[in-house]
Structure formats: C-alpha cells, structure tokens
C-alpha cells in the first residue's frame, strides 16, 4: 500500500484513471445496498402492520394461489393456503434477527481474540492464531450442521452457532491492525502515562479498529443470512411452522411444476438481502479505508 504514490505516478501510462462512470456507479451500488438494507430493516420491524394476514393462518380454499390474482393475497399462497407476502415479511424478520445476532457474536469473538493475540504477542499470539488456523480447516457448513444436529434449534442457538463458526477472519483482521497500531507513538504515550494494558486495548486501540470492524460486520451479516438460509433449507435451522426464507424453500422443490413462485420469491429475497449487505460493506470499505481507495 506504500506504493500508492508510485501507482499514481505511473497511472497515466499504464492504466486509465478511474473513470467518472465507474466512480459514480460504484457509489450507486453502495447507495443501492444502503437503501435495500434500510427497506428490509423497516419491513421486518413493521411486519405485523404490513402483513395482510397472519403468516401461520391456513386457508385451504386458497391453496397454490398464484401472485397478483387475488388482491387479498398479493403474492399468492403456499401449499397450505398461507399468505406468501406475510410469510416473506415475517421470514425476513427471522432471517435478519439471526443474521444480526450472529454478526454480533462473530465480531465480539473475533475482535476479542484478535485484540488479545495482537496486543500480547508471544505464546498467547501463537496459540490463538493456531486455533484460528485449525478452525479454518473445517468447512463451515459441515461444522454448522453437526453442531446444529446436536443442539436443539432455537433462534438464539442458530445465531450463536453461526457466529461461533465464522469469527476467524475478523480475528485475523483485528490482529493485523493491532500489530500495526501498537507500535505507534500514541500507544507509547499512553504507556508512558502509566495506562494499564486493558486500558490501552479498550480506549486507545479499539477505537482505531472501528472502521475495518464496521466493514467486516456488514459483510458478516450477509454471510450469516446466507448460512441461516442453508441450514434452514436443509431442515436444521429455523423450524416450521415458523417461517424463514430458507425453510420456505425446503418444500418448494416439490411444487415446481404447479407453483414455481414458491421457490422463486424466498430465494430472491435472500439474494437481495445478501447483495444489499455486500454492496453496503464494499462501499463502506471504499469510504473508510483510504489505503484501498486507489486499488479498487
């Protein structure tokens, strides 16, 4: 990253400068992400007010109603005659809650381990980083499913399991930042003033890690929503009759011929959510990390 100046110097000869179109569109993507995320959060928060029906209400007279046919069921109904729009709204609530709780778990665990490892160095660092390497050897879905099969699935347990199997990258990011920061003059100044190790960690170091942590947190919500939908789809996450976007897809495969919207809509919502958080995270990274700005 120290080559930033060189990059600028050679830029006119080797590459075109970032075009206005690209910069504009890059910001548009971040804006799109932000708007999507805010809309999704609002829809989930006000799901009870927005949903035309109870998401669990069965109405066998109206099974497999296609979207936009009966205005009382705007997005149609599923195999039990439940209103799809209401289920999508409540399902989004579940998916986002799990995503956010999992993200908090990930960020807290990862930041703590990265902070302690980076600040203390020595054997603590070696042991903790070996633990990170070991955890990274396991495919996350395998680990998730094994633990999910052992632990009774509740919203909290699902979120915790996702969080506790995905904190490793955060730990690495925080550790790298801390290693760089602890050599800075302001840390030495705090030490010279007699500040304790925990005080330096909490008040001097952590505020400086806030920006990369915020970026990681945003991207982790996206990853957690994706993971929740995987394990709910496979039947080990959110349990029916409670709706989540993942478990709404479980039965949809059986009704492809007659009711494809049952498979299309929940998946589209998952994709929209994950894309939204990913774009927002990418945009935040561009905005908050000046070192990356040139090379994006």
């Amino acid at each position, binding site marked *: 990253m120290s080559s930033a100046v060189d990059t600028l110097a050679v830029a006119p000869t080797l590459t075109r400068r970032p075009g206005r179109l*690209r910069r504009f569109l890059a910001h548009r993507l971040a804006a799109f992400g932000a708007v999507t995320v805010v809309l999704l959060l609002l829809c989930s928060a006000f799901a009870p007010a927005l949903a035309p029906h109870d998401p669990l209400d069965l109405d066998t007279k109206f099974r497999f109603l296609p979207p936009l046919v009966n205005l009382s069921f705007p997005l149609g109904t599923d195999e039990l005659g439940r209103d799809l729009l209401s289920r999508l709204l409540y399902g989004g609530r579940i998916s986002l809650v799990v995503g956010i709780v999992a993200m908090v778990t990930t960020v807290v665990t990862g930041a703590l381990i990265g902070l302690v490892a980076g600040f203390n160095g020595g054997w603590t660092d070696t042991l903790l980083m070996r633990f990170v390497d070991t*955890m990274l050897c396991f495919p996350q879905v395998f680990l998730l499913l094994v633990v999910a099969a052992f632990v009774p699935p509740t919203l909290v347990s699902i979120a915790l399991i996702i969080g506790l199997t995905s904190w490793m990258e955060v730990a690495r990011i925080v550790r790298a930042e801390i290693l760089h920061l602890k050599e800075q003059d302001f840390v030495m100044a705090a030490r010279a003033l007699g500040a304790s190790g925990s005080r330096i960690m909490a008040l001097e170091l952590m505020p400086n890690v806030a920006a990369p942590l915020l970026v990681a947190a945003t991207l982790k919500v996206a990853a957690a929503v994706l993971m929740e939908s995987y394990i709910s789809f496979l039947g080990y996450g959110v349990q029916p009759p409670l709706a989540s976007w993942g478990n709404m897809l479980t039965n949809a495969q059986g009704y492809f011929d007659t009711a494809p919207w049952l498979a299309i809509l929940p998946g589209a919502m998952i*994709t929209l959510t994950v894309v939204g958080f990913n774009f927002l995270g990418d945009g935040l990274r561009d905005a908050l990390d000046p070192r990356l700005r040139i090379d994006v």
Partner: protein
Amino acid sequence: MLSYCGKRLLQAVPLLIGVSLIGFGLMHLAPGGPLAVYTLNPTITAQDIERIKIVLGLDLPVHLQYLKWASGMLTGNWGTTFFGGRPVLNVILERMPATFLLMGTALALAVTLGVCVGMLGALRRHSLFDYLASTGAMIMLSFPTFWFGLMAIFVFAVRLRWLPSGGMYELGEEGNPLDLLRHLILPASVLALVITATYSRYTRSAFIEVMHQDFMRTARAKGLRTPARLFRHAFPNALKPLIALLGTDLPQLFSGALVTETIFGWPGMGRLFVDALTMKEYPILMGMVMFTAIFVIVGNLLADIAIAFLDPRVRLS
C-alpha cells in the same frame, strides 16, 4: 526445497492435532455422547449399554479415550456405522469419486472462466466490461447456491426438459459416460458459479498488482507486445495468489459440494453427510468432518509447496 517441504510438513502437525482435538470434542458434545442411538432403542437394557460402553472403551478416562481414538484415526480405524456396522472410512471413501468428479469439473470450469474474466478485467481496467464483471462477481458471490440450483432445475429440467434434474445416471445407464456427462452439467455449473466469482476477483487484483511492477514497465519499454507481456511476464507472477487460493478455498468448495449434492441428489460425500444427519449416524458425521479437515490441511500443504517450487524467494526466506 526439501528442507522447505520438511518444515512445512512439520507445521501441519499442530494443525492436525488441533483438528483432532476439536473433532473429538464435538463427538462428546453429542446428546448422550456416542451412545445416543442405543439409548433410543427400547429393546436395549441398561446392562447392554454398560457392556457397549466397555466394548467401545467409553469407560476410560477422557485423555485415554482421546489417545485411543486418535491412534485409531491414524491407522485407518475410523469406527463403524451404527446401522450395518460397516467401517466408516470405507463408507466415506466409497462416496469420494462422485464428489471429486463434481468438485474437479466445477473447479476446472470456474478457474478457466474466472482467470479469463479476471485477466480481461485487469487489462481493460475501468472499462464497461471490467465494471460489469466485478459487479457481476459481487452479485454471484451473494447468490445462495441452493437457490441457484433450484432455479437451474426449474429452467433446464422442469421447463425446457434439456437436462435431468438429479442423480448421476438414468436407470439402466450405469457406467455410460455420456449419460454421466448429461447429469454432471447442471450440478457442476451451479457449484462453479461462486468459485468463478472468487477467481475472477482474485485474478483481477493479482494482475493489477503485477502490472504495476517495474519489470512490467521495462518489458513494455523494450517494445514487447501485450500477449508476450501478459503471458510470459505477468502470468507466472500472478499465479502465486491463485494457487494459494486453491488451498484456502477448499473448505468453501466442500461446503458448496454438500449443498449442490443435496439439491441434485448427487451420490457423493455431501449427500452421505446429510443422510447421516437424518439417521443420526454420528460416526459418519465425525468421520466426514475429520476427513474434510485433513483434506484441507493436505491441500494447503500442496499449494504451499507448489508456490515454493515456482518462486525461489518463498523457500529461501
């Protein structure tokens, strides 16, 4: 080179121990431990359970149990399945070819496509193509694989009826390579989607970094044409992060294969794992977790050695 390989091999040992400790811990996390399935069976009495405990060595102190289990893992004795009593390792190895065929095809597809797209993007940086490719990659990375698989089945199998919706062979066509290919297209493409996106992003940034190096400017200054610069000078140098990615991305590849196999009814290891989950076949679950983790360690080791082989700076530092 040899000493580098030896050093790298030694570094893998603590990883293996760490993986085995976590694996062993997980096994004991199971409700009722490894005996859960017996306690559910009404014909088995408490005395039977005690006897099974002694037979399986579950009456020993924990550290001895671990040593017994770990030495079993090392000698290929991975335990037996609850139903049928078959050796776990055999059951897993039986399913390996199908999974590796799927993963290999997807990886080959994805790397080829991803590297091409990434190179073009780096070469025509900030062009419309570059912009569309990077945005596309970002969207592809956000796709839930299983949903993409469902949509692929819906379009190509249910509506267009071009390809089969699942399985490996039609009935009576077992062993027919053409039939296998027809069944392979959809799952391999679905699995390749996310990997392609990852590779195009990595290739793009690797090439952009290489193209800013002094030797690239020299090559240009002495009048080398773009293809020569790109393939003779840039490519070998950009290869390193891509080989490293082959190793570090293996867990995601296994996770992706599990999801893809479930959707397409592909009879591989992922499918075995999901079936074992419903049957509460803990020995198979643990075996699979250990198998994939060990495979990841070996994969990373091979990737590191390949990099050292390509770049003397790595093995000498």
